[in-house]
C-alpha cells in the first residue's frame, strides 16, 4: 500500500479505462464477468446435486412401490401442472429477452420484461399454492390426516385388490400398505416441489433486486453481469421443473394403463 501507484502500473490494468463496476481485485471487467459466470455455473452444479439426492430417493422408491407411485402420480392435477409448466417457460423467455434488451441498451423494455418475469414467477407460486390447497382437501398431505382411500377406490386392479376380495385380513393389510407407500410418494412430492418452490421464492426476490437495478440504469450493453447470472439461476430453476413435471405428473399416464 505504501506505493499505491504500483498497482496502476501493471500491464493488465493499463489496458482498460477505470469502470465503476470493476471491483478492485480484478484485472479487468472481462475477468470479473468470467469469474461471476463460472461461479454461477458451479453453483448450479451444487444445486443439481442438491436436487439429485431427492430425485434418487424418488426413483428408488418408484421402482420398489410401483403401483402406489403410479396411482398417486395419476391423481395429480395434470391441467394445473401443465399450466405451471407453460408459465415457467414463458418466464424463462422473458428473462432471456430482458438480457437481450440489456445488450441492446433498451432500459424500459428491460424493466418491463423483468416485471413480467416476476409476474410469471408469482403466478407459478399462486398456482402451486392452489394445487397444495387441493391436496389438503384430498387428504394427500402426509401426516395431516393423510388418506389413500380415494386412490384405493380408483385403482382396485392396479393394486391387485380384486384378487384379495375373499380374504379380508390380507385385504386390510394390503390397504394399510398402500396407505404407507402412497404417503411416501406424497412426502417426496412435497419435498421436491416444496424445495423447488423455495427456489422460486428466492428467484422472485432476486429478480426484484435485479429489476430495481435495471430501473436505476445500472446495466449497460457492456455490463449486465448480475442480470445474466440471475438469469442463469432462473433458467436452472425452470429446468428443475422441466424434470419434475414429467417425473411426477406424466410418467404413468400411458393410454390404457
Amino acid at each position, binding site marked *: 500500500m505504501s506505493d499505491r501507484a504500483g498497482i496502476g502500473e501493471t500491464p*493488465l490494468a493499463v489496458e482498460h479505462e477505470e469502470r465503476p463496476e470493476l471491483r478492485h481485485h480484478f484485472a479487468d471487467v472481462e475477468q470479473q464477468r468470467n469469474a461471476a459466470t463460472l461461479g454461477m455455473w458451479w453453483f448450479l452444479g451444487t444445486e443439481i446435486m442438491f436436487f439429485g439426492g431427492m430425485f434418487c430417493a424418488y426413483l428408488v422408491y418408484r421402482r420398489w412401490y410401483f403401483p402406489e407411485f403410479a396411482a398417486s402420480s395419476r391423481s395429480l392435477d395434470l391441467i394445473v401442472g401443465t399450466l405451471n409448466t407453460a408459465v415457467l417457460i414463458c418466464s424463462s423467455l422473458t428473462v432471456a429477452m430482458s438480457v437481450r434488451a440489456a445488450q441492446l441498451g433498451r432500459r424500459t423494455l428491460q424493466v418491463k420484461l423483468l416485471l413480467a418475469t416476476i409476474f410469471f414467477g408469482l403466478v407459478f407460486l399462486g398456482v402451486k399454492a392452489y394445487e397444495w390447497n387441493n391436496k389438503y382437501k384430498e387428504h394427500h398431505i402426509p401426516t395431516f390426516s393423510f388418506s389413500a382411500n380415494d386412490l384405493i377406490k380408483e385403482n382396485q386392479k392396479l393394486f391387485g385388490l380384486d384378487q384379495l376380495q375373499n380374504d379380508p385380513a390380507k385385504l386390510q393389510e394390503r390397504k394399510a400398505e398402500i396407505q*404407507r407407500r402412497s404417503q411416501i410418494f406424497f412426502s417426496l412430492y412435497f419435498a421436491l416441489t416444496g424445495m423447488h418452490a423455495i427456489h422460486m421464492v428466492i428467484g422472485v426476490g432476486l429478480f426484484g433486486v435485479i429489476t430495481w437495478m435495471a430501473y436505476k440504469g445500472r446495466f449497460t450493453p457492456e455490463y449486465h453481469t448480475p442480470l445474466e447470472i440471475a438469469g442463469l439461476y432462473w433458467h436452472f430453476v425452470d429446468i428443475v421443473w422441466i424434470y419434475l413435471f414429467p417425473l411426477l405428473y406424466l410418467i404413468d399416464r400411458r393410454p390404457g394403463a
Partner: protein
Amino acid sequence: MATAAVTTERKNYLNAEYGIRSWLLTTDHKRIALLYLLSITLFFFIGGFFALLIRLELLTPAGDLLTADMYNKAFTMHGQIMVFFFLIPSIPAVLGNFLIPMMIGAKDLAFPRINLLSWYIYVAAGVLYIYCLATGGVDTGWTFYTPYSSMFSNTHVVEAGLAIFIVGFSSILTGLNFVVTVHRMRAPGLTWSRLPLFVWSHYATSIIMLLGTPVIAITLVLVVLERTLNLGIFDPARGGDPVLFQHLFWFYSHPAVYIMILPSMAVMSEIIPCFSRKRVFGYTFVAMSSIAIAAIGFIVWAHHMFVAGISLYSALVFSCLSFLVAVPSAIKVFNWTATMYKGSVSFSTPMLYAMGFIGLFTIGGLTGLFLATLGVDVHVHDTYFVIAHFHYVMVGGAVMGYLGGMHFWWPKISGRMYPEGWGRLAAVVVFIGFNLTFFPQFIVGYLGMPRRYWQYPPEYQVYNVLSTAGASILAVGYLLPMVYLLWSLRYGKIAPDNPWQATGLEWRTASPPPTFNFDETPEVTWEAYEYDKMPLPEEVTLER
C-alpha cells in the same frame, strides 16, 4: 526489500485498519482466514474437551464417570464438531483462504464478499450448534443413522441437523470461491502446469465440496422434516428405508474424508520440497492423483455399508472400487518420499510434521485396505479398529498437516518466527502421544470391542488405559503450539519475507503481506518448485 530498516512500520493487512468493524466487515481473504482460525480453534478445543471426557470414561470398564446418555452425547458431539466445525474448514478455510490468492498472484479471491458471507454462515451454524449443545446436545452419533435419529432419539437432533446443514453452505461457498479463483484469477504466465500443488489439491477439494455437500444438506433436511413433520421417507414403520439414508449420507461423508485429507496433502507438497531443496518428484502425478482421489472418492461410499444389508454384488463392486482409491494415495506417498532422495534435508519443525504425516498417513491408508477387504471388514466394522484407522487419517493425517502448515506459513501470517526448539518438541510430543492413543485401538478393535460403548468387558481395559494415557500426552502436544505461537506474536523474532527461501509466490511479497498481497501483479516465468535457483536459507529459526 533492503529498505526494511525504515523507521516507520510497513503497512500490511494486519495494521492497514484498526477496530472491530474493520475485522467483522473485512473482505480481505487474509483477515477472513484469521477469523476462521479463531473460530475453528474454539471448536477444536470444544471437540477436544469431549474427546477428553470420552477417554476418561473409558479408563475403566464400568460406566462410572458419565451416565450412558452423557457419554453418547459426548462422542456424538466430539464427532460432529471435529468433522463439520473443525476438520472440514480447517486447512481450506484458514490456510487455503490465506494462501491461494497469493500463490496464484491475485489480489483476493474471486468473490470476497461471498468469502465473508461463508464465515458468517459458519458462525451462524456454530452458534446454533452451541445452542444445541447448551440445551442438552444430541446423541445420534455423528452419522445420524435413521430411524434412531428420525424417530427414537429424544435429543436435539433438529438443531444439530440444521446447524450442519447450514455449515455445509459455508463450505460450498468456500469451494465455489476457490474453483473460480483458480480458473479465473491466475497471474499472467501462471499456467496450470506451473501451479503449486497446494493449489491443485485445493482445487480437487473444492470440487468435492461443491458436488458432495449439497447431498448431505438435503439428506439432513429430510431427517429434520421427518422428525418435525413425520414424513417417513427413512422410517421403516411407514414404508421408508433406513438404508437409503445411509447411502445418501455416505455419498457425501466418504468424499468428505478427502475434503479433510486432500488439503493436508496440499500442505505436504509444499513443505517437503522446500525442506529438501528439491523440485517435487513427479509433479504431474502428484497433481493428477489429487484429481483422481476426488473423482474416485465419489464412487466408493458403500464400503461403509458392507454389513448394513446391501446386496452381495454391490458389496463386491464397492470393495473393488475402494481399493482403486488407494492407488493415487500411494502415488503421493511414494512421490513425497522420493522427493527427499538426494535432497538437502533439514529437520525444521514443518518438516518434522511432514515426516510424521507420511508415516501416520501410511498406516492410516494401509489399515484402510483392511476395511475395503470384504471378509475382514465384516469383523472389524464398527469396532475400535475403524476408530483407529480414521483417526490415523484424520488426526495423524489432517491435523498433522494442519499443524505443519500453520508452522510453515506462520511467519507469513503473523510476521513473526515461532521458537524453533519448542516447535520441534511439540511435533515429537504430538507424534508420540498420537501413536500411544490410537495404536492400541487397532488391537482392541481386532479383539472385538465395538465403538460407541460406554462400558465394556474388562479384558479390553489395558488398551483403553494406554489410549487414555496417550490422549493426555496428545493434549499437551496440542496445547504447546497454541501457547508458543501466541507467545511469538509478541516476543517472536521478526520474520523476513522468505525465511525458508521457498519458491511460492506467497513468499515473494512482504511478511505479513500488504492488503492487496502484491505491490505489483507478478508475472510468472518459472516453473513451480525451482529450488535449484533459490539460495539456502540462513538458519534464522535456530535460536541461541
